[in-house]
């Protein structure tokens, strides 16, 4: 067996599930920097979306968040029980709201004034977002006792793949 070329390693790793990749970051320095690089993450996402329905999960938003294999409910009969996701911000008395999702990332909150995070359910990593209180325009309609939420979450590929989020309280 000859020495393995980096481009071949790259081809193989894009075909691995996230759990294996999180484990193989520990193989060597070059493996870690390859797996952590935005270019690899992009290639992995593209490769995974090529496989029709193989790994697609549906996220159910009740008081907590649940995941179910898309395939298992395709025929109208669910063969699998939804699995509760271990997520950040889990609190007994506060439901989690999903404010948006994009390219495998979720924008969730259980308290829009204090707790807003971007979360990746596959890597279980999350990032708390800074809250910038802004005064809404005076004519913004408000429900009684509720704060009106306008927010968005999107992907900007012109900016090296940075994910942008706008949240207007």
């Amino acid at each position, binding site marked *: *067996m*000859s*020495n*393995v*070329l980096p*481009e*071949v*390693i790259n*081809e*193989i*790793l894009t*075909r*691995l*599930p996230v*759990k*294996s990749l*999180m*484990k*193989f*970051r*520990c*193989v*060597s*320095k070059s*493996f*870690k920097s390859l797996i952590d690089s935005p270019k690899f993450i992009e290639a992995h996402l593209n490769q995974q979306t090529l496989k029709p329905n193989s790994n697609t999960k549906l996220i159910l938003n009740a008081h907590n968040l649940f995941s179910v294999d898309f395939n298992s409910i395709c025929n109208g009969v669910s063969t699998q029980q939804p699995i509760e996701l271990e997520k950040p911000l889990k609190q007994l008395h506060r439901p989690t709201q999903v404010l948006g999702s994009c390219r495998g990332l979720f924008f969730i909150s259980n308290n829009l004034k204090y707790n807003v995070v971007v979360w990746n359910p596959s*890597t*279980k*990593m999350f990032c708390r977002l800074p809250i910038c209180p802004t005064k809404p325009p005076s004519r913004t309609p408000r429900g009684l006792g509720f704060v009106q939420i306008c927010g968005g979450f999107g992907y900007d590929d012109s900016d090296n793949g940075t994910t942008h989020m706008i949240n207007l309280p």
Partner: protein
Amino acid sequence: MVKLKSNDDKEFEVEEAAVIQSEMIKNMIEDGCATSVIPLPNIDSKTLIKVIEYLNKHINMGKAAETGEEDDLKEFDEQFVNMGWEELFDVIMAANYLNIHELMELCCQSAADRLKNKSVRAVREMLKITNDLTEEEEQEIINDAPWAFEGPEIDDTVN
């Protein structure tokens, strides 16, 4: 017919329709560089025989879809990747060099399936990678996602 020569000096004749699945050789033919024998200094005869077997079977890929032979081809592919780890890797390196997209796809997926549940130590050995992380760095990576290092599926064997 196109003549290919392995690095251990064995010559093989392959139909042009089969061999042009290799982008590299297709370009050589188009540029008029394939008039005599094409030497392949990176590929031994054992690996080249496997690659040619694949090319000959996949010669009529388009036709297979029309005549309903897709299942036959799928079965062939499953059997084809049923080889030892080192052998599989030699075919991947050859497919990469010859630029045969479908073969690369098939073999890389098989390699990924075999590596998926392997332990970190097994992967280092299988891919001949020297660990250059310190113990502290390793621990930090494990702390990022301890759940990835646990589970009954983790397999420490090398094959």
